[in-house]
């Protein structure tokens, strides 16, 4: 540890800006630090060296001075989506303990927000939710003055759906975390038939790989990809088209291994051979088990981007903005991505990623493979026909 860095930590500790534990941990004085560093669950062994510049430090970002950030922060997000070390660094720098609360779908997120009293501070919603969240006042419009490190001008707009509300306005309700696609993974060890499309996926699920396929417990992607199977739009809400999708899903259901969005454990255990998969999970699985391949359906599917947003009425606003600002730092993004392996939008962040990451075809696929993909539309979040279809399918 550099003496300057240590001096700053020590000052923070003396002035009460961080507690003793954080100080000990951050300064490497405590046994805890050694233990926790050792237990960092990383699918790739030593991620730090691979990333440009390695772990972010106080030199890259420091909390706003003179602001009481509080002690805790609740982030509602998706599974396998944050580098635990990134979170720890944030805690070390701020003294704010972060609790990650992974959910299974945007619909679940919305349901709980509508009921109220969630106590959440930060959300990681997907592009298609902002229309609803904005109109219902569930999120705060971002206060840009509290996000000094955010520079959206570097963002690749092609890969970015809007996080503004009302659409076309300048009011941002979130800024991009990363983006990705919804494809599927298969384990080469067991899957020998060629699989390139959603048609292959659903057909082989009912025949050769019956009992070995997982689809998401998520209306958006599972119904959407079933629509793609029939050549319809991923976003269709057409009654007849939905009926065809339902028919397909019901036919596939008895052949499925599971309907779950937590498909990493069964894929790793080889309980499942094929799973509907998001980019980040696909890249993580492939990194650990090279036999597992990730495929973007050549007949279509979803492209998505996820955002950091602040929940309206948060009890930890200062900490929430501090966290968002922290995550807006390119070096932090690049470091975080070494774990979650989703592609970034911020050109500065991408620039800091290692060549190995940038050339990873799962994380950064060829532009040509994205042409048929669609961003989910705002309507899908609240569409009753789709919600009902999904509920019917699951209890069938």
């Amino acid at each position, binding site marked *: 540890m550099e003496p300057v860095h240590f001096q700053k930590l020590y000052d923070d500790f003396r002035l009460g800006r961080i507690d003793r534990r954080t100080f000990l941990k951050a300064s490497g004085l405590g*046994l805890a630090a050694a233990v926790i560093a050792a*237990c960092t*669950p990383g699918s790739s062994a030593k991620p730090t060296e691979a990333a440009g510049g390695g772990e972010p430090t106080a030199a890259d970002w420091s909390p706003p001075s003179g602001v009481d950030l509080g002690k805790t922060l609740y982030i509602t997000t998706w599974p396998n989506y944050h580098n635990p070390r990134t979170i720890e660094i944030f805690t070390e720098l701020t003294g704010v*303990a972060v609790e990650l609360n992974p959910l*299974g779908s945007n619909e679940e997120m919305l349901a709980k927000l509508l009921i109220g*009293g969630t*106590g959440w501070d930060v959300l990681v919603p997907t592009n298609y939710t902002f229309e609803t969240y904005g109109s219902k006042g569930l999120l705060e419009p971002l206060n840009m003055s509290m996000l000094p490190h955010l520079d959206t001008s570097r963002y690749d707009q092609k890969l970015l759906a809007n996080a503004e509300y009302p659409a076309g306005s300048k009011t941002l309700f979130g800024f991009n975390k990363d983006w990705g696609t919804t494809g599927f993974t298969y384990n080469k060890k067991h899957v020998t038939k060629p699989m390139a499309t959603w048609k292959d996926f659903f057909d082989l699920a009912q025949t050769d790989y019956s009992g070995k396929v997982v689809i998401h417990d998520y209306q958006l992607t599972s119904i959407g990809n079933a629509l793609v199977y029939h050549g319809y739009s991923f976003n269709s809400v057409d009654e007849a088209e939905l009926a065809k999708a339902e028919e397909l899903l019901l036919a596939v259901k008895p052949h499925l291994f599971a309907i779950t969005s937590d498909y990493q*454990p069964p894929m790793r255990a080889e309980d499942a051979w094929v799973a509907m998969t998001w980019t980040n999970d696909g890249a993580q699985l492939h990194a650990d088990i090279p036999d597992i391949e990730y495929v973007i359906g050549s007949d279509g599917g979803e492209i998505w981007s996820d955002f950091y947003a602040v929940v309206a009425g948060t*009890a930890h606003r200062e900490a929430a903005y501090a966290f968002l600002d922290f995550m807006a730092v390119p070096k932090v993004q690049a470091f975080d991505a070494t774990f979650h392996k989703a592609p970034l939008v911020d050109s500065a962040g991408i620039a800091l990623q290692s060549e190995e990451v940038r050339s990873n075809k799962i994380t950064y696929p060829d532009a040509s493979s994205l042409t048929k993909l669609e961003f989910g539309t705002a309507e899908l979040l609240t569409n009753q026909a789709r919600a009902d279809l999904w509920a019917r399918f699951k209890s069938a």
Partner: protein
Amino acid sequence: MTDRTTPPPRAAIDRAGRWVDRAFRIQATALYLFLYVPIALVVLFSFNAGNRTGELRGLSLRWYQVAVEDPFAMGALQNSFVVGAWTAVIATTLGTLAALALQRTPRRIRAVFEAITYVAIIIPGIVIGIATLIFFVNAFAWINPQLAGIWAAIGAGAPPTIGTGLHTIIAAHVLFTMAIVIVLVRARLAGMDRSLTEASFDLFASPLRTFVQVTLPQLRPAIITGALLAFTFSFDDYVIASFVAGPGKPTLPMYVFSSIRRGITPEINAIAAMVLTVTVTLLVIVSLIYRRSSRIAAAQRAAATADAAAGTS
């Protein structure tokens, strides 16, 4: 010759008896294995040096340290204790009071009350969770503006807001655990010798003193059982808590459930093993005390019988 003197059927019966005995023992052993293999696995993986539950990579105590230093895990554990303890206290107090009052309630009211108690026990946790959540949300949506109005009227600054939290979990848990306590205490009251209270009245004890000195000691086993059940149910409940939990106050089961989604680490196993250790230790202590007192009682009983024999002969 000796063969003839022993009737063969008896030997056959004994052999059959031994077989039956052995069959019972085998079945029992199998069941205990069934019950304890998963728990043994949980404990085993708590010593895992690796990062994942399920793949053993050597033994270590590191996850215990991780667990103890994890503010969220420890917070959740603490929340569960708080919820369980309050639930046990409130449910046993209210349940016992209600059970006592029901002894003296007109039949019609008692029938209604018993029916509601029955429903409270029967109703699935998931329905309690959903229904009480909807109720809380609506109630708070009504109360908070009222509070704001009052505070504005008296100019007292920022009004307090009431929301979900540990108290709402406790409230929902008390609902059905209280019903259980009522049933337990009523059963005990029904089996209680009425003449004991009469004897107490007869010996100049007022109703209150009779309650404290006679009725309450008689009810103690039922009340303790009820409190233990209430604590256990409450401590381990996920379904109801997941619905009515408040901001940032997850109970241990909620924390475990979200860990399962996050990809479970041996930290969870370490917490489970610690909880198990604590309960088993308490259990051993209690049983040792119990064994000691029952040994004393047995000795006293023996002495008494000897005396009685000496006295009557």
